[in-house]
C-alpha cells in the first residue's frame, strides 16, 4: 500500500516538474511584441503621429514624449527594449513608424533597405543647465568648462554612451577623475524619471545630465552632490528650481526647458546637447536583388531560413550558425569534425555546411557531389592563441611571425598547401638545423585540412608548418598535442599546451579567455551545399563548361563538336565508346554522349554511371551504300521493308535490347538459301549492341540485320571491321558494299553517301557519373583496400589495440589492488564493526564513483586534477579506469565473501582459528570462486569502457577507427572492424573465464 502511494506521489512530482519546464520554455519563446497596430496609409508629406501605432525604445526621450499621446488615446505606443526589435516590428508592419533620437535613427540607415528618416524631425530641444538668475560670473565659468568639454570630445562621448546608437550605448561610461577637490557643487534635478538624462539606477542617480555635471566638476575641481527635488508635476519645477538657486541650496539645476518663460526666473548656460526626435519609416523595397549585402546580412546571399546548417563544434562557422539558431531562422547540427559535417551533407541530412574556405576547398576537391556557393559567407583572420596574460611568449611569437611574414616564409607555407595546382607541394617547409632550448607544446585539432590534419600517421598542415617555423625562430623544440577543437583553449589556459594553432579566428568571446597573436592568414567562411540538384547535368543546358566524352566519328561526336565550336563545352574523343565510359568513371570527363542502346548496355554493367533523363536527341539509323549505287540501295531497301513487315527486324533488335525476358531468346538464324556473290559490310565492331566482338565473332543488331538482308538477297555476307571514321570512305572506295554501324543520317554524311531507309530509331543520351551508385558500387574488396591497406591505415588499428590492451591490463591491476583493500575494510566493518572512519571513506568513494559517468571521471582527472602537470595520458587513463574499476571490484569481492555460508566462518572460529586465519584459509578461497565470474565480467567491461580514451585524445583502438573514418569517409567499414576486434578479444577472455571456472569446480569434487 505504502509503496503505491509513494509511487503516485513521485509520479505527480515528476509530472509537475515536466510541466513547469514546458511552461518555462514556452514563455521564453513568446516575443515581446504584442497586438499588431492598424494599417494606415502613411502620408509622407505631412506625417502626423495621431492615429498611428508608434514604436519606441524603453527608457528614451521618445518614450516619454509619447506618453502624452498615449494618455490622450491619440496613438498606440509599442515599447521595445532594443532598437533592433523596434526596427524588426517596423519592417513586419507591426508598427507604422518609430520615434527615436536622431543619432540612433541615422545609425539605422545603411542597414536594412527600405528604412528612411522622415525629413521633418518630430521635436528638437536644446538642453542646458540653469543657474541663479543674472549670476553672470558663474554662468561664464560653466560655459567655458562646457566649451572645453565639447572641444575635447568628452561631451560627445557621454551623449553617445547614453543615447546611442545601440552599439555605442553603455560602451564608454564616463569615469570620475581622481583629483583634489577644493569645493562642492550641488546639482538640483527635477526628478529621477527622465531616462536617459536623469534617472535612478542601483540606488544612485545617474544619467547624461549627471555625467556632464561630473565632467564639469572634474574640470573645476569640485565635488558633485545631487539634490533630487522629486517633483512629479513639472509645472512647479521652474519655481522650485529658481528658489533653490536663489537661496544657494543648489548651484546648478538640470532638466528645465529652455524657453522665454524660464529665462525670466533663471539663467541658462549654453546648451550641452540637443535632443532631436526623428520619425523612422519603412517601405518595402522592390523585389530585385539588392546589390550590396549589408554588413551583417548574410542571408541575402544564401537564404538560411528553415534550413539545417551543419558546422564543426567550436569553429567560427558554429558561432555564426548559432546566431541563426537563436533567432529561429535555421536549425543547426554540430559535429565534432568537419569531415562528419561533410558526410552528413553528402547524405542529405543537412542543407548546407559553413566552413573555412581552405578546408572547404579541400573537401570539395575530394567530393564531387558537394560544391561551394560562389558568394562567400564571411572573411576572417586566423591567429595563434596563447594563455591569457603570457605576454612574454606572445611577444616572442609575434616577433617571430613578423619576421616570417616579411621573409615570405608564411606565404610559402600557405601556398604549398593551397596554392595553384602547379604550386602545391612544391615548397614544403624544411625544419631548420638550429640550437634548441626548451619545448613549445602546440595544441591542435588535426581534423581540419589543410591547416592541420593527419597524413600518413603524422600531424601536418599549414598551422603545423608555421609553428615549426616559429619554433625554429625561437630555437625551441616543438611538440604537438592533438585534441578536440573545443578543448584547445582550455588546454592552453591549463598549461597543458603553450600555444594553440588550429585555424582559429579571433572572436570577442575567445578574447575573454585567451590572448591571440597577430593574424597569420586570412580565411573565408564559405557555404558548402550538396551538388546533386544544382550541378548535376540534367540536360543540354547543363553542359555548359563541362567536358564531354564521345566516341570518334559518332553522332555524339558531331553534337559535341558543335558545343566545342561554340565554346560551350570541352570535348574528349575516344576511339571506343568503352574508353569514353572509362574516362567518365574516372571523372576525367563530366559526361558522355552515346546512342541510347549502347548506353543502356554500359550503364547496366556499371553501377557508377547513369543516363540523364532528358534525352539529347532522337535519331534513326540507316545503312549506307556508295553514293549513286541505286541498284544496291533499292535491293537493300526492299529487303529491309520485307524484314520490317515480317517482324524480323524487331526480333533481331529485341534479341539484343528488348526486355530481360526477350534478350537472347530469338537469335537470328542464318537461312539456308542459295547464294550468289558476296556482300561486303563495313562496320566498327565496338558499338554494342549494334556491332561488337563476342567469342571471337563479330555480332550484333546490325550484323544480324545484314545477315537477314543477305539471306533475302541470296548473297554471302562478309564483314570488314574498321574504324568508324573509315566506313564511309571504305564504302565509297568500293572496299565495302554496305556500311552498317549504327549510323545516323546526317546532312554531312548525305553529302558523301547514300542511306537506306532507317531500320531503327535510336536516341542519344547523356551519361553522367552517379555518385550514389558509385558509393555502393565500390566492391567490398575495394572498400577493404581503401580503408585498411591504403596508406597502411591498418596501423591505426594495430597501434590503437596495443594502447587499449596496455591500459586495460594496467587498470585491472590497479582496480584489483584498490578494490581488494576497500573490500577488506568494508567486510571487516560488516563483521566486526571496526574501522568506522575508513569504512565511511570507502562508502563515500563507492557512491561517487558508481554515481557518475566514467567519462566524466576521466575528464575530471585529466583536466581537473592533473591540471598544471604534464603527465602521460596513459597514466591518467590507468588511474581513472583503475579507480573506476576498483569501485565495482570492491563490491564484487565483498558480495563474494558474503555469499560464503556463515557457517563456514563459525566452524573456523569454533576450531580456534583467528579472524584472519579463518578468512584467509577458509573464506577467501571459497569467496574467490564466487567472485570469479563477476570479476572477470567487470574486466571485460573495463576493456570496452576504455573506448572513451578519445576524450583525452589518447589514441586507442576506437580512435584508430575514427581516424580512418575521417580519412576515407567510409563510416561503416572502419567502425565494424573496430567492433569486431573488440568482440574477438572479449570472446577470448570469456573463454578463459569459462576454462578457469571449470578448473575450479573440478577442484571441489573428486
Amino acid at each position: 500500500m505504502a509503496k503505491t502511494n509513494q509511487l503516485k506521489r513521485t509520479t505527480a512530482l515528476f509530472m509537475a516538474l515536466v510541466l513547469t519546464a514546458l511552461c518555462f520554455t514556452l514563455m521564453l519563446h513568446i516575443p515581446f511584441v504584442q497586438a499588431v497596430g492598424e494599417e494606415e496609409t502613411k502620408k509622407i508629406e505631412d506625417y502626423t503621429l495621431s492615429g498611428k501605432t508608434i514604436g519606441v525604445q524603453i527608457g528614451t526621450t521618445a518614450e516619454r514624449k509619447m506618453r502624452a499621446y498615449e494618455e490622450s488615446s491619440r496613438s498606440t505606443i509599442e515599447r521595445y527594449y532594443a532598437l533592433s526589435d523596434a526596427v524588426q516590428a517596423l519592417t513586419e508592419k507591426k508598427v507604422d513608424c518609430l520615434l527615436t533620437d536622431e543619432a540612433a535613427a541615422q545609425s539605422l540607415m545603411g542597414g536594412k533597405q527600405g528604412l528612411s528618416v522622415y525629413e521633418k524631425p518630430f521635436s528638437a530641444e536644446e538642453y542646458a543647465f540653469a543657474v541663479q538668475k543674472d549670476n553672470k560670473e558663474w554662468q561664464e565659468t560653466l560655459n567655458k568648462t562646457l566649451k572645453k568639454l565639447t572641444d575635447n570630445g568628452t561631451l560627445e562621448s557621454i551623449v553617445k554612451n547614453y543615447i546611442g546608437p545601440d552599439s555605442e550605448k553603455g560602451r564608454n561610461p564616463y569615469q570620475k577623475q581622481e583629483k583634489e577637490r577644493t569645493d562642492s557643487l550641488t546639482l538640483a534635478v527635477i526628478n529621477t524619471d527622465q531616462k536617459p538624462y536623469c534617472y535612478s539606477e542601483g540606488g544612485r542617480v545617474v544619467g547624461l545630465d549627471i555625467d556632464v555635471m561630473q565632467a564639469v566638476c572634474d574640470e573645476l575641481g569640485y565635488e558633485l552632490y545631487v539634490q533630487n527635488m522629486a517633483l512629479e508635476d513639472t509645472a512647479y519645477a521652474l519655481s522650485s528650481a529658481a528658489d533653490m538657486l536663489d537661496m544657494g541650496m543648489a548651484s546648478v539645476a538640470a532638466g528645465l526647458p529652455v524657453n522665454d518663460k524660464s529665462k525670466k526666473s533663471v539663467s541658462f548656460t549654453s546648451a550641452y546637447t540637443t535632443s532631436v526626435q526623428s520619425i523612422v519609416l519603412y517601405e518595402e523595397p522592390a523585389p530585385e536583388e539588392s546589390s550590396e549585402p549589408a554588413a551583417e546580412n548574410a542571408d541575402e546571399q544564401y537564404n538560411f531560413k528553415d534550413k539545417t546548417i551543419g558546422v564543426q563544434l567550436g569553429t567560427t562557422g558554429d558561432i555564426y550558425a548559432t546566431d541563426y539558431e537563436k533567432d529561429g531562422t535555421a536549425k543547426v547540427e554540430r559535429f565534432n569534425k568537419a569531415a562528419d559535417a561533410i558526410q552528413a551533407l553528402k547524405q542529405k541530412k543537412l542543407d548546407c555546411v559553413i566552413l573555412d574556405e581552405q578546408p572547404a576547398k579541400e573537401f570539395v576537391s575530394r567530393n564531387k557531389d558537394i560544391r561551394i556557393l560562389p558568394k562567400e559567407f564571411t572573411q576572417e583572420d586566423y591567429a595563434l592563441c596563447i594563455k591569457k596574460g603570457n605576454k612574454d611568449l606572445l611577444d616572442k611569437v609575434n616577433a617571430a611571425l613578423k619576421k616570417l611574414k616579411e621573409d615570405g616564409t608564411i606565404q610559402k607555407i600557405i601556398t604549398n598547401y593551397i596554392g595553384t595546382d602547379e604550386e602545391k607541394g612544391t615548397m614544403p617547409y624544411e625544419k631548420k638545423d638550429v640550437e634548441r632550448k626548451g619545448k613549445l607544446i602546440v595544441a591542435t585539432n588535426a581534423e581540419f585540412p589543410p591547416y592541420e590534419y593527419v597524413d600518413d600517421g603524422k600531424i601536418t598542415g599549414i598551422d603545423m608548418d608555421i609553428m615549426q617555423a616559429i619554433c625554429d625562430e625561437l630555437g625551441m623544440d616543438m611538440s604537438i598535442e592533438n585534441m578536440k577543437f573545443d578543448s584547445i583553449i582550455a588546454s592552453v589556459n591549463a598549461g597543458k599546451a603553450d600555444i594553440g594553432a588550429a585555424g582559429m579566428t579571433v572572436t570577442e568571446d575567445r578574447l575573454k579567455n585567451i590572448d591571440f597573436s597577430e593574424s597569420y592568414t586570412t580565411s573565408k567562411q564559405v557555404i558548402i551545399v550538396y551538388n546533386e540538384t544544382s550541378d548535376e547535368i540534367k540536360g543540354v543546358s547543363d553542359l555548359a563548361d563541362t567536358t564531354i566524352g564521345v566516341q570518334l566519328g559518332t553522332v555524339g561526336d558531331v553534337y559535341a563538336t558543335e558545343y566545342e565550336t561554340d565554346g560551350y563545352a570541352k570535348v574528349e574523343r575516344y576511339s571506343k565508346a568503352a574508353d569514353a565510359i572509362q574516362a567518365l568513371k574516372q571523372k576525367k570527363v563530366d559526361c558522355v554522349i552515346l546512342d541510347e542502346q549502347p548506353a543502356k548496355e554500359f550503364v547496366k554493367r556499371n553501377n557508377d554511371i547513369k543516363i540523364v533523363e532528358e534525352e539529347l536527341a532522337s535519331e534513326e539509323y540507316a545503312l549506307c551504300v556508295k553514293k549513286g549505287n541505286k541498284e544496291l540501295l533499292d535491293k537493300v531497301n526492299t529487303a529491309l521493308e520485307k524484314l520490317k513487315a515480317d517482324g524480323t527486324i524487331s526480333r533481331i533488335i529485341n534479341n539484343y535490347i528488348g526486355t530481360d525476358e526477350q534478350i537472347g531468346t530469338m537469335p537470328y538464324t542464318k537461312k539456308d538459301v542459295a547464294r550468289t556473290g558476296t556482300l561486303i559490310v563495313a562496320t566498327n565492331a565496338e558499338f554494342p549492341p549494334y556491332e561488337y566482338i563476342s567469342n571471337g565473332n563479330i555480332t550484333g543488331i546490325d550484323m544480324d540485320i545484314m545477315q537477314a538482308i543477305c539471306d533475302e538477297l541470296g548473297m554471302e555476307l562478309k564483314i570488314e571491321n574498321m574504324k568508324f571514321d573509315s566506313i564511309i570512305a571504305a564504302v565509297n572506295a568500293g572496299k565495302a558494299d554496305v556500311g552498317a554501324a549504327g549510323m545516323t543520317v546526317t546532312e554531312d554524311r548525305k553529302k558523301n553517301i547514300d542511306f537506306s531507309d532507317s531500320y531503327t530509331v535510336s536516341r542519344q543520351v547523356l551519361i553522367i557519373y552517379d555518385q550514389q551508385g558509385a558509393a555502393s558500387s565500390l566492391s567490398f574488396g575495394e572498400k577493404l583496400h581503401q580503408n585498411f591497406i591504403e596508406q597502411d591505415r591498418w596501423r591505426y588499428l594495430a597501434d590503437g589495440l596495443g594502447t587499449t590492451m596496455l591500459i586495460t591490463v594496467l587498470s585491472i591491476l590497479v582496480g584489483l589492488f584498490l578494490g581488494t583493500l576497500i573490500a577488506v575494510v568494508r567486510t571487516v566493518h560488516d563483521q566486526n564493526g571496526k574501522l568506522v572512519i575508513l569504512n565511511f571513506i570507502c562508502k563515500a568513494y563507492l557512491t561517487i564513483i558508481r554515481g557518475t559517468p566514467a567519462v566524466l571521471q576521466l575528464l575530471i582527472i585529466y583536466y581537473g586534477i592533473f591540471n598544471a602537470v604534464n603527465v602521460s595520458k596513459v597514466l591518467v587513463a590507468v588511474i581513472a579506469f583503475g579507480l573506476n574499476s576498483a569501485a565495482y571490484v570492491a563490491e564484487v569481492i565483498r558480495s563474494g565473501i558474503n555469499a560464503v555460508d556463515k557457517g563456514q566462518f563459525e566452524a573456523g572460529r569454533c576450531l580456534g582459528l583467528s579472524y584472519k586465519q579463518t578468512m584467509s584459509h577458509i573464506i577467501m578461497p571459497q569467496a574467490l570462486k564466487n567472485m570469479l565470474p563477476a570479476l572477470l565480467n567487470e574486466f571485460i567491461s573495463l576493456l570496452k569502457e576504455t573506448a572513451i580514451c578519445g576524450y583525452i585524445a589518447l589514441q586507442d583502438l576506437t580512435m584508430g577507427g575514427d581516424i580512418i573514418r575521417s580519412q576515407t569517409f567510409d563510416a561503416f567499414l572502419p567502425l565494424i572492424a573496430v567492433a569486431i576486434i573488440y568482440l574477438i578479444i572479449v570472446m577470448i577472455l570469456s573463454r578463459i573465464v569459462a576454462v578457469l571456472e571449470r578448473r575450479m569446480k573440478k577442484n571441489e569434487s573428486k
Partner: protein
Amino acid sequence: MKVNNTSSGAAALNKDVENKREKINNNVLIEVYDLCKKFGDHEVLKGITTQINKGEVVAIIGPSGCGKSTFLRSLNLLEVPTSGIIRFEGTDITDKSVNINKMREKMGMVFQQFNLFPNMSIRKNIMLAPVKLGKMTKEEASQKADELLERIGLADKAESYPNSLSGGQKQRIAIVRALAMNPDVMLFDEPTSALDPEMVGEVLSLMKDLAKSGMTMVIVTHEMGFAREVADRVLFIHEGIIAEENTPEEFFAHPKNPRLQDFLSKVL
C-alpha cells in the same frame, strides 16, 4: 559487558540440580551465571544459571525458538551474551581481555549443517586447525587424521572432498574434525536434525561412543531416545529460562512443567 556478579547470581545455583550432582567443585568445566541474551528488543535468554561438569553429558531439549541453540552457542561465545558470566575452566570468557581463540581450542563444536570446508580434502579439513594453531606438526596432524578416520571407518575418504560424501559421513567427519583438537568439551547443535533417518543412527552411535569414553558433552537435540539413553542430565529450556531439569528417567517419565508435559506428549 556488564559483570553481573551479584550475590544472588552467585548463590543462584539451581536447587533442583544440586542434589543430582555427583562431582565436586573443581570438576566443574563450565559455569553459567544469569546468562541473558537480547537480539535487539527481543529477549531470548532471560537469566540462565547452570553448570556443566567434567564427563557429564547434558542434553537440552525444547520447542524451537526458545533459546536452546542460543544458549549452546553462548557457551563458546559464538553468541555474545548481553549480560551474565560464563566461566570455562575457571576463566571468565565474557571478559573482553580473554583470548577467545585460545578458549575455543578446547571447545569443540558440531553444527547442524556440518560446515565442512568444501575447498579442501577431508584430511586437510581435519588437519587445518591443529597445524595452523601450532598444536601439531603436519606429520602429526596427518597421522591423527588417519587415526580418527580409521576409528569411524572412513579412512578411504581421506583424500575425498566433502561434497562427494553423504550427510552422515559428513557429520561424523565434522565430529572427528573437532576431536582432532583434543577438546575438553564438545558442543552439539542439533547434530542429526539435517540427516536422513537412515544416517541418524551412525552419528548417534559415534556420539554414544564418545560419551562412553568420558567426553563432556552438551547436546541440543530432538532425539529423545538418544537423550534418555546417554544423557546424565536433561534440561528443558522454555521462554528463556531452564524450566525443568532432571535425570532422564525422571524427566521423561514424570515431567513436572506443564509446558514440558505438553511438549513431550506431542513428541514421544
